[in-house]
């Protein structure tokens, strides 16, 4: 439980050291060479091999192999420009879908919601997306998301929702049938049969979000009981 400010040296030492988000290797420093670049809780794996800073943020910075939810904003040549919440718009090629050929391309319109994987994310280039799994080259859930509703949350909340052991989605799923797609860029797509269920999901996500509310399981259950479902 050690909290660090940016600019502090971190005692990360290992033969095969792996630095995660928030840590940077700096040269020509007297003692140790790993510095934190953001504020948060310093965490590491049991064998001290992987170190990272656990913090919250609202602005998404693309990283490769992350699943994100994007909204198509324009056609560009053979593909589309997609808004994933980062500083630059991402580009999605027309052939980056399972079973797409030059003759049969998916029919995406401006405003369509997609679940995609970031295939290229470099600071000097525009991010690129793909709608199939990297290893199997099959859709595996990526592609267009039809209908539904988009909920915004903080980045730490989307990581929590993706965690299998988090309480919120099973709690909601036990009450009503629910389809959800979680993007690591702070966006969650929700699809339910009735608007009141969608509103309940949206309000619960806002309430449990550490950025505003930060309710635990008991408080969330009580809150859910006050909603009319």
């Amino acid at each position: 439980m050690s909290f660090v400010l940016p600019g502090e040296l971190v005692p990360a030492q290992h033969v095969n050291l792996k630095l995660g988000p928030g840590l940077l290797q700096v040269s020509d420093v007297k003692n140790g060479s790993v510095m934190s670049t953001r504020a948060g809780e310093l965490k590491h794996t049991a064998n001290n091999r992987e170190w990272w800073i656990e913090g919250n943020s609202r602005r998404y910075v693309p990283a490769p192999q992350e699943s994100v939810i994007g909204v198509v904003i324009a056609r560009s040549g053979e593909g589309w420009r997609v808004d994933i919440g980062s500083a630059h718009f991402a580009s999605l090629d027309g052939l980056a879908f399972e079973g797409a050929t030059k003759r049969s391309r998916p029919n995406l319109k401006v405003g369509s919601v997609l679940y995609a994987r970031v295939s290229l994310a470099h600071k000097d280039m525009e991010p690129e997306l793909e709608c199939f799994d990297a290893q199997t080259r099959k859709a595996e859930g990526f592609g267009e998301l039809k209908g539904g509703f988009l909920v915004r949350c903080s980045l730490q909340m989307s990581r929590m929702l993706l965690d299998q052991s988090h309480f919120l989605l099973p709690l909601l799923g036990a009450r009503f049938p629910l389809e959800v797609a979680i993007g690591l860029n702070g966006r969650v797509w929700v699809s339910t049969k009735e608007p009141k269920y969608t509103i309940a999901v949206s309000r619960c996500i806002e309430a449990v979000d550490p950025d505003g509310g930060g309710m635990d399981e008991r408080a969330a259950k009580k809150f859910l009981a006050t909603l009319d479902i």
Partner: protein
Amino acid sequence: MSTRHKRLDGRANDEMRPISIVYEALDRVDGSAKFGFGQTVSLASLSGPLEVRTALESPSHATLEISVRPLASLPGTNSRALATTLKAVLGPSLLLTHHPRTLVQIVGQALCGSDSGGGLGGTGRGWNASLVASLVNACSAALINAGSVPMKGVVCAVAVGRLSDGPGVHAMVLDPSEAELPALVGGGCFVFMFSSVLPHAEETADVTHAALLWTNYTATSGVFEDSEFAEAQELALEGAGRIWRTFKDSISKHGVQEVEKTKAEKPSRQSSPEIDDDKMEI
């Protein structure tokens, strides 16, 4: 020659007013914070890295855009000058090369300051040293809160003043309040950066290395000695170190609200305070 001077509010020479840091969670920005030395409070918000228009775009680093607003009336020359200072002071603490062709936008707002925002606060009007210090600290806190722009250090600022009780009797005091300003014969704001990657830095107590980035120390007589300046800098460094430690406490507690020693000791574990929309009319 510094003697233990009797201050208007009974503080010691090296005692600051209670510090409050509140992470505001403003709606349409990525990070925001309010920093106060007692009643001298500033608010800052940060957004970034975001899309930048081509005119401001830079291919090798993020563009830092800062705007400063006084409490009343439109931003004038002083606000513009302060924004330039803030850019010079916050720029070195950020790793802007990690996000080329983007924009990092900071907006600073004074939440106190009588009359118009005019003047650099000689008689307590407008931007006095404590208000400038609270603005710099609010920007640092907003950067810490956002967590999206990588930083290589934390910038902390504090104001120092030189009180005079008569000819030959002076004392250097930390964090002069608005009421003490008319009695000062010298003073200014000192801005330090705390980082472990500074080339020439001194170590203070148990905090990371610090280096002086900027100061606007002046003497009303127009002349001051090296020893006076060194004394002011040393006192300011000590105060800034305490502010750095308060920043560190605030990340685990989601904000800090120190209470004055005269009141009963409340636990400082306090998230955002009650919303007082009636009091704030901005």
